[in-house]
């Protein structure tokens, strides 16, 4: 495992389940990525995953597990968790999954946190593979990447409105008989 001490812009380093996540300041993303690519040898950008945390920890999903107020033994059918998920710093996170294709295979995740509408620099100059991944993040989540030469929709039709994978975008489809009917 290499030491990530020299990576510029790291706010926090998290390790869980055998994976390392470097939370980086979005303003210094390009610096951090260039350092990781050139000095630490992470030459392979595996994936760029954008996640929307709107509503994180608010709903008692499926009604069985529990609510933000914790475990309630007196309400029938609510098992509850003994803790609530830790709140996230901002609404969106973009995770860059990096891989070192080399003598010592290693993976690291660079994570940045953004608000709605906040743009972030594009890492296209660091890894050309970021082209379509960033287009997809823009298409699905509405995260704007500055410096991307061709930020248009890729999966949805060009004239589609809205960003489908956001939590406030409905699943869509047709109402089906016998589902959610009382």
């Amino acid at each position, binding site marked *: 495992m290499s030491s990530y001490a020299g990576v510029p812009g790291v706010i926090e380093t998290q390790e869980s389940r055998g994976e390392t996540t470097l939370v980086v300041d979005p303003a210094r993303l390009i610096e951090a990525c260039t350092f990781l690519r050139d000095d630490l040898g992470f030459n392979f950008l595996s994936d760029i995953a954008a996640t929307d945390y709107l509503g994180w920890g608010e709903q008692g999903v499926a009604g069985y597990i529990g609510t933000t107020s914790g475990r309630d033994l007196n309400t029938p059918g609510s098992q509850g968790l003994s803790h609530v998920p830790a709140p996230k710093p901002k609404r969106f996170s973009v995770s860059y999954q990096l891989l070192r294709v080399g003598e010592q295979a290693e993976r690291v995740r660079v994570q940045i946190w953004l608000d709605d509408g906040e743009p972030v620099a594009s890492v296209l100059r660091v890894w050309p593979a970021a082209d379509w991944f960033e287009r997809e993040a823009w298409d699905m989540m509405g995260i704007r990447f500055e410096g991307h030469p061709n930020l248009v929709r890729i999966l949805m*039709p060009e004239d589609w409105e809205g960003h489908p994978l956001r939590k406030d975008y409905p699943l869509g489809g047709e109402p089906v008989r016998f589902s959610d009917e009382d």
Partner: protein
Amino acid sequence: MSDRPLAKAGLQSERVLWPDRGPGVFEREVAEIEDALLLTTIEKAVAWAQSNSVWPDTFGLACCAIEMMSIVSSRYDIARFGMERFSSSPRQADLLIVSGRVTHKMAAPLRQVYDQMLEPKWVIAMGACASSGGMFNNYTILQGVDKIVPVDIHVPGCPPRPEALMEGIIRLHEKIRGGVPPAYQIRGVAE
């Protein structure tokens, strides 16, 4: 076995499975249609010829396309029905087997391909996604291809086995021979 000419020509599918039963619902309905339409011998001959060389169009979209490809392969040989000539040009195809999920983005090309086909033309909606949207009831999948093209046969399955698709194709042949008009003549698209 009834004395209907078509029955002698061989409505096979249900009788293969249940030889001792009488004509099934499908067979009876086709026989009724045959009665009602009073096909002439020429029309019957034309229908027989049409049904024996329905040329499908290569409209493979997703997983069902893999099973459609395997119906072309030697085990589930579709050439015995005269259908091995998959044509990529819709102008030379008779049958559009929509195999796979149709997105809204793909709906326009699908309709365009359907329009480019010459009549008479038939459509088989293969699989759950083409018939009704399948397991994907969401913002991007067309809930059933019969919303944009009139469908003759829906084949259920996810994906349907090659034998299931073959059953659908055989029923289509029987419909053609029975004189049932192609779907665009009897119904429009779904709601």
